[in-house]
């Protein structure tokens, strides 16, 4: 056969076979996933048959956990969780503030009282690199005063690129974390513990604008049975970390950087902290890939010591995106089942802090029709809200605030993009928007608080 006839014959026969298979698969209803996507006639066929109900992928026994029983409380309504831009304690009277205790402390700052108000912002990769918290810190410090980036871990398992801190360190630091198998030691709220064998770390806080403000630099570390010599900025310093958790102020001056050298690997080191003497601080505790239940690994007495030594006034708990790791999951009762005790424990240990549960942001998966929000995202957000409701905490719906269903798809596709093309992570522009939204929600709550205090104490 001549080459030109071979071309005709090949193209013709392949086309006929291809067309026949494509048509047959519609006529017989036989589908095979790899072929379905390349079916020649799929663009001109309308499928009228009702779509099959999504089959739940039940891979673990926990998926069969019954839904948590939600006890109705008078004057409280769980459904308030659906509202965007609202921090709610589920009280039906939405003119009342949700975070009253915390807001009183903020108000103290606003009215000139010298004190520290500290926020611990927990999260997964969504806040990695100080994303979201960077904006939140900036806005809060502008509004209520305060300087400093707060807590910074020695290093991190994942990329530790953050614009707010400039750090360098020696490579010998040993690291234990939530991901270390059979961990027995006390991990800090960051999920990390470091040990140096003649190792150093140097950090410079890049957030401080006011060059006249005094910055308190501290070492956060665990227990050591006797006084121990470490080096701070190349000078020997003797410290006595005799509690299971210690916050040791190493200097308070105009210096914005600090170098730490640790020779003895028996001293558990968590990180450094940069804070002004008064004002609001936001500590970023990000750990990639976790769902929040990992905090069950930290025992209550340790948490209580942290609460005493390094008190917090607001705990923000933002997880969920890693729970949504399969596109077809709809049932997250198992998550409620294991997260509730953890949230309760943190709430109890940090009893002087308000507890604010922040829902997952939107995340999308690739379905047959293209990228779309995870099918189960509404039920996950509801589960997160119900935990907050049950333990008497507050809730903020980040998913609705960023725009609800498919907002991550819009964010990733718009120019300039607000999210990465993994359809999970808002980029720095998007995270700044989330930070601003969160700040505005806090300020709304604060305004409710001040309006009330005006009513209660008109001469205030």
């Amino acid at each position, binding site marked *: 056969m001549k080459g030109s006839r071979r071309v005709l014959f090949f193209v013709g026969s392949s086309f006929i076979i291809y067309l026949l298979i494509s048509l047959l698969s519609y006529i017989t209803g036989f589908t095979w996933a790899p072929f379905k*996507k390349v079916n*020649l006639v799929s663009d001109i066929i309308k499928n009228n048959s009702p779509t099959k109900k999504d089959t739940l992928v039940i891979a673990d026994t926990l998926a069969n956990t019954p839904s948590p029983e939600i006890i109705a409380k008078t004057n409280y309504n769980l459904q308030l969780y659906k509202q965007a831009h609202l921090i709610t304690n589920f009280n039906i009277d939405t003119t009342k503030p949700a975070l009253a205790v915390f807001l009183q402390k903020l108000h103290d700052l606003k009215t000139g009282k010298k004190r520290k108000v500290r926020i611990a912002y927990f999260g997964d990769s969504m806040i990695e690199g100080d994303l979201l918290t960077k904006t939140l810190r900036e806005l809060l410090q502008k509004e209520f005063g305060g300087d400093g980036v707060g807590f910074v871990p020695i290093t991190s398992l994942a990329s530790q690129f953050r614009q707010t801190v400039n750090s360098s360190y020696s490579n010998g630091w040993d690291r234990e974390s939530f991901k270390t198998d059979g961990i027995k030691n006390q991990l800090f709220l960051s999920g990390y513990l470091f040990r140096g064998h003649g190792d150093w770390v140097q950090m410079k806080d890049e957030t401080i604008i006011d060059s006249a403000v005094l910055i308190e630099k501290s070492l956060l570390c665990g227990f050591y049975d006797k006084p121990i010599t470490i080096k701070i900025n190349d000078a020997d310093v003797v410290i006595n970390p005799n509690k299971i958790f210690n916050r040791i102020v190493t200097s308070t001056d105009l210096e914005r950087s600090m170098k730490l050298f640790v020779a003895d690997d028996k001293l558990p080191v968590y990180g450094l902290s940069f804070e002004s003497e008064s004002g609001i601080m936001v500590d970023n505790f990000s750990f990639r890939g976790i769902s929040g239940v990992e905090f069950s690994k930290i025992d209550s007495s340790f948490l209580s010591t942290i609460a005493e030594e390094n008190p917090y006034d607001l705990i923000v708990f933002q997880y969920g995106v890693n729970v949504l790791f399969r596109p077809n999951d709809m049932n997250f009762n198992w998550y409620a089942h294991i997260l509730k005790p953890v949230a309760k424990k943190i709430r109890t240990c940090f009893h002087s802090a308000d507890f604010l549960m922040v829902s997952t942001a939107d995340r999308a998966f690739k379905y047959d029709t293209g990228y779309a929000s995870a099918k189960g995202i509404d039920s996950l957000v509801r589960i997160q809200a119900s935990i907050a409701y049950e333990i008497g905490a507050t809730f903020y719906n980040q998913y609705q605030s960023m725009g609800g269903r498919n907002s991550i798809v819009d964010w990733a596709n718009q120019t300039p993009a607000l999210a990465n093309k993994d359809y999970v*992570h808002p980029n720095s522009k998007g995270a700044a928007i989330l930070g601003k939204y969160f700040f505005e929600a806090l300020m709304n709550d604060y305004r409710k608080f001040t309006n009330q205090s005006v009513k209660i104490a008109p001469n205030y």
Partner: protein
Amino acid sequence: MPTFDLHLFVQQFIYDPKNPLLFNNGFFVCFFTLFICLYYSFRNNFIVRRYIFCLFSLYFFYKASGYFVGLVIISAMFNYFVSNAIYRQQNKRTKMLLLLLSIFFNVGILFYFKYTNFFISISNSLFTTHFSTLNILLPIGISFFTFENLSYTIDVYRDEFKPASKFSDYLLFLSFFPKLVMGPIVRAHDFIPQINLPFTISDKDFTKGFYLIISGLIKKLIISDYLTVNFVNYIFDDPSRYTGLENLFAVYGYAIVIYCDFSGYSDIALGIARWLGFTIPPNFLSPYQSKNITEFWRRWHISLSSWLRDYLYFPIGGNRKGTVATYFFATLFFAGSFFAEVKFLQLSYFVSTAITLGLLLLFMLPSIIEKNKKGVATNLNLLTIMLLGGFWHGANWNFILWGALHGIALAVHKIWMLLTGKIVSNVKISWWYKAIMVTVTFHFVCFTWIFFKAADFATATTMLHQILHDFSFDVWGAFYKNYSPVLAMMLIAFLLHAIPDSLADKVLERFTKMPMVAYVAVFFMFVVLYGFFKSAEPVLPIYLQF
């Protein structure tokens, strides 16, 4: 019950900006089958055959780019008439004027569509003017067909080629659908003589065409798209989220992606052309096997680099002399690099001056060593074509920087050859020397891809920062666990790339006698493989935007 939808069916024939016609659309399968049947039926009637070809090509372009098809027709008409006028004109001066008119027209169109907004923004930032940018859509393929028009009229002007006597010949040369939207840039003197030849192709042509099409489809649709969607885009989107190791692999990944994407599409074009009786010279020759950067440019996007050589490098002086253009672009480059060092890298005037003078010295060094003045002009001419070559890719500083880096590298390679010529002459053929050189060249090319791909300069520097300052093998375990299929795909791609081209040809010869059933079976194996890997949204070829 699934039913045939007439409305959807009719819509298939209309241009859809979200889904331009590419070789991997189902529509193309039908389009090509119908075309080949008609083309074969009228294979002996050259006129009808040519018109069928033109119509299908223009329709293909309409499905890929909408009403911009009008631009192709207008541009073909203009160049057809002007080139014939140039050919007939005896008066040298008028001939020159006609050529200038043609250059003005072609480059003018390209500039309007591609560079207007770029120059508006430069004007706004340099001269604080307040022009608002225009809403101009870039017609697909314009960079390719403009260069084809230019080479055509210039060749006619140089008396190297007798212009096409029939308009349809010229229209077909310009709109030939396999290469219209993404190249390769075809030369008229290679192509036009093939238009009116009998449609006879050998069994070998069939096999080679089949191989080019299937391997091109695999490169583009399976390797490149898979790596783009599942890895490379994540990292380049937000490099600060990832460690140095992940960033480094993303750069390697992108090196594969851009090669497989572009060369894959070129191969399909070459294969289809081969099946239709046209031989188009190869556009890529395993570029990552290059042992130095000069060789890289002989193997990468050959149709563009040879175009730049023939129609830009030689006219501005080549390796003989410098011209006004040489010194104009060289001055722009040195002034630009000084400005960039001060403004973007925030270096002091002293350091910036020192670096700029250092760069200047780099371009002069070869001729100082050789004691030959001409060498300076050669180097600056090379720099000029690299800068313009970068700029051809798009109105973006990243591309200019990419071109500048390659221009500098060509100069460095010259110095290296002059300095080490005698020393390495003994080891030059040893495998380890070659291996080192291939590795160094590949890494340099990868380095420049960072600027080529990154959305802006800041993203590129973040990526470099991560690779240089946040690199640790600790994350290998987690990385491997997450991305093992991606790593496997990258490994396959590199292994395939390492196969010498001569070996592929030898193997192909053995398959020439393969029965038709086997070809059909291979094709369906590919279809299923594609179905397995196909992403929900089409991944548009990278070079479609250039």
